[in-house]
């Protein structure tokens, strides 16, 4: 009964989404206030109905209702409760429902928090959100219904893929979708602006918080995915340039560009059509990501079971959404006139540079990801585009970007004094140079790129701090004055500095783990010791232990430092999940903060007491996670900025002539 309720609620949600699309859009077109106002209640109703539907599926999982085919295929009565719940979105159908739920929540959020929007803009934004809702709800209902029953019901389920029974991956999809779907709001705002024919500073102020929220979530989603790969796949890698990873990384890069270009629209009333285009493309790439994962077009380790029919349906949606919005862009955008006078060397110029590099990086990844497919389509044969290609093309684009990132926030709007900025950054430049040289010296013949990147990371970190110090006039005025300046500084300034510093920290982590990882693969017998970096690992043996829905072979290692002090006991496992019939490896990780110690147990020797053992010394990897957290914190702090929270002033109140806007 409850699954039928969920199914019915989803059908109702489709109807409500249709109302949410048609009524406000037509109302805005005709200037009918009552019709325009219908968007808000419809968005709330849609959210409630989708929540009921999602709740029904969750309930089916929680009580292990094996009359529902989706539960049978992805759950098992012995599975821990956490994974019963997260199993809801651990499969194609359920994850679509989660996608829709998040979309509906964002729609409801616009309806609730968008009171200061002009009615016609709000109506159009909600209408576009409704349209996206129609696409995804109908896709789910017609091609991927999670509420389908099965008869006769089996005695037990087939269990969730054990790789997905993991805290990192359990919360990776919701975060990722919050990011992907969050960009739908920016997209809806962009389409609404094209329909209205008006883009101004107020518009940019409304778009910014949504983009910022989506960006923060997506940062978290990508970081969680990387973290999962790092500890679950068993060899300490965290990024593989896999199509599915690229699919989440492209919207992140372009969303970052959008975040920055929206600032230019807000402060300087220029770069308008470019910003609109970025908003459209960012969400388009999110849709493309969904398409790639679910259509089976590209081979990937992460792909859901593929189905060409679903692929065609999503492709049709892509054509309507992306093709439609780009057509609208081609028709309407040329009439958007930007004002804003500025010199090439200025904050605006720096942000253009940022956009150029980020957009090129996105294009590079897009070309690399789709190239095998497109070449094959043209009959050019089969090629593989793997990590070496991306490392060769992406990294060189990032180096100048990181350099400009250090300068950017110190440049003045309109016309910047570059020598002045450089002289204020001489400490950062000096320390960066020193860090690079020190790296070169310490690694003694290691990759030059690693030294360059470490230098740039130090430069960026200190430049971000310098920016804050400059803004509060640290050490140049009495401390009390600095303190009051620090308190008065807008939160978004702190957010910028945190996000930039976070990236600097993360870069250090990326360099450390790619350039200086130490690995020891060997056969060890119990009692044997191995030295890795400054640590001595003793292999104590392996025992068999039962888990709730798996059998484990747990190895024990004791780790001592150079002075013979015991610092950790590590217990990597090999698990077999009998129901899913799959083995997994559970690495043991002991963090020393500046580095991780990482141990994996392989197979026993066929005739002998030895075990295959993989030990890794992963320098600076914790910085990767720390940096991601700091970046997210930057996003949150910026999001809490009073100017964004209160919302933009009413459109009428802020028609500032561009020439009189103050430089910050």
């Amino acid at each position: 009964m409850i699954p039928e309720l969920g199914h019915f609620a989803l059908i109702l949600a489709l109807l409500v989404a249709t109302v949410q699309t048609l009524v406000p859009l037509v109302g805005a077109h005709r200037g009918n206030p009552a019709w325009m106002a219908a968007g808000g209640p419809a968005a709330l109703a849609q959210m409630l109905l989708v929540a009921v539907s999602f709740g029904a599926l969750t309930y089916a999982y929680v009580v292990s209702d094996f009359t529902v085919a989706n539960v049978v295929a992805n759950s098992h009565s012995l599975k821990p409760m956490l994974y019963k719940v997260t199993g809801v979105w651990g499969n194609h159908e359920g994850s679509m429902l989660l996608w829709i739920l998040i979309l509906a929540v964002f729609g409801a959020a616009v309806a609730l928090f968008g009171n200061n929007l002009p009615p016609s803009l709000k109506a159009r934004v909600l209408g576009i959100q409704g349209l996206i809702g129609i696409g995804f709800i109908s896709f789910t209902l017609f091609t991927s219904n999670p509420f389908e029953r099965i008869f006769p019901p089996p005695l037990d389920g087939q269990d969730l893929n054990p790789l997905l029974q993991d805290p990192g991956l359990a919360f990776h999809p919701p975060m990722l979708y919050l990011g992907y779907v969050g960009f739908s709001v920016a997209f809806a705002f962009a389409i609404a602006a094209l329909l209205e024919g008006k883009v101004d500073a107020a518009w940019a102020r409304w778009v910014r918080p949504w983009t910022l929220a989506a960006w923060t979530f997506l940062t978290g989603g990508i970081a969680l995915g990387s973290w999962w790969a790092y500890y679950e796949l068993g060899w300490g890698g965290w990024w593989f340039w896999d199509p599915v990873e690229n699919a989440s990384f492209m919207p992140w890069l372009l969303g970052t560009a959008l975040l920055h270009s929206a600032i230019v629209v807000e402060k300087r009333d220029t770069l308008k059509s470019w910003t609109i285009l970025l908003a459209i493309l960012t969400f388009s790439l999110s849709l493309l990501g969904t398409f790639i994962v679910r259509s089976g077009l590209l081979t990937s380790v992460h792909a859901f079971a593929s189905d060409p029919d679903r692929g065609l349906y999503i492709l049709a949606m892509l054509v309507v959404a992306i093709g439609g919005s780009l057509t609208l862009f081609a028709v309407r955008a040329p009439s958007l006139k930007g004002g804003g006078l500025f010199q090439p060397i200025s904050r605006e110029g720096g942000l253009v540079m940022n956009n150029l590099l980020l957009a090129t990086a996105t294009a590079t990844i897009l070309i690399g990801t789709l190239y095998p497919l497109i070449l094959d389509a043209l009959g050019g044969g089969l090629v593989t585009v793997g990590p070496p290609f991306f490392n060769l093309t992406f990294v060189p684009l990032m180096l100048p970007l990181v350099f400009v990132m250090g300068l950017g926030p110190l440049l003045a709007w309109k016309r910047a004094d570059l020598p002045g900025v450089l002289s204020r950054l001489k400490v950062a430049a000096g320390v960066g140079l020193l860090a690079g040289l020190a790296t070169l010296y310490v690694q003694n013949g290691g990759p030059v790129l690693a030294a360059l990147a470490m230098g740039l990371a130090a430069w960026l970190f200190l430049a971000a701090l310098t920016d804050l110090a400059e803004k509060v006039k640290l050490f140049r005025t009495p401390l009390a004055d600095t303190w009051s300046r620090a308190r008065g500084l807008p939160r978004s300034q702190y957010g910028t500095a945190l996000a930039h510093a976070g990236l600097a920290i993360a870069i250090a982590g990326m360099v450390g783990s790619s350039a200086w990882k130490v690995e020891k693969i060997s056969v060890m017998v119990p009692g044997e010791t191995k030295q890795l970096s400054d640590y001595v690992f003793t292999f104590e043996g392996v025992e068999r232990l039962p888990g709730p829905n798996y059998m484990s072979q747990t190895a024990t290692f004791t780790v001592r430092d150079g002075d013979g002090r015991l610092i950790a006991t590590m217990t990597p496992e090999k698990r077999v999940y009998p129901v899913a019939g799959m083995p997994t490896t559970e690495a043991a990780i002991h963090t020393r903060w500046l580095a991780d110690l990482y141990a994996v147990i392989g197979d026993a020797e066929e005739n002998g007491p030895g075990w295959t053992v993989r030990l890794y010394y992963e320098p600076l990897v914790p910085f990767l996670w720390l940096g991601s957290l700091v970046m997210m914190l930057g996003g949150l702090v910026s999001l809490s900025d009073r100017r964004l929270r209160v919302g933009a002033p009413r459109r009428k109140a802020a028609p500032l002539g561009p020439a009189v806007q103050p430089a910050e």
Partner: protein
Amino acid sequence: MRYLLYVLPLVIFLGAGVAFWWALDSGRDPSRLPSALIDQPVPEFDLPPVATVPVPGLATADLVDTGQVTLVNVFASWCVPCKAEHPILVRLTEREGVRLVGINYKDEPEDAARFLDDLGNPYARIGADPEGRASLDWGLTGVPETFVVDAEGKIRYRHVGPINPPEVESVILPIIEEARR
């Protein structure tokens, strides 16, 4: 001119859309792997017979200038699809008179002998490749795999995975026919 710039994103997207549509509609299999060895001479290799199986081993010379088309089938006793494919191989040799030789991939001689005792031995020659090294020279990606080699010793076709009954008529026999010409 400036207007073109605004249409550009749409044009690029439509191009990508057509490629996607083709990829979905053509039934393209993204994990399909073409062989680099088509129309190349067979690789250099020399494999001993499988102990306890009374047919000779297999070497490059057995495939070059033989005057007839030869099927080279890579198989193993532990491979389930090989078992499924076996009757079709038997039929091809018996009814169609095709010359069939085998490469026994990473197998134990006793297991291979039992496999052939149970199911019959359609192979004129079998080379034992216990390390799988020679099979790699054939560009092997898995077992079973079947190659069509023409009279001169050129590889004309590679079939990945087991041959299904319908594929004998639709794919294998026409290719053998063509290789004979």
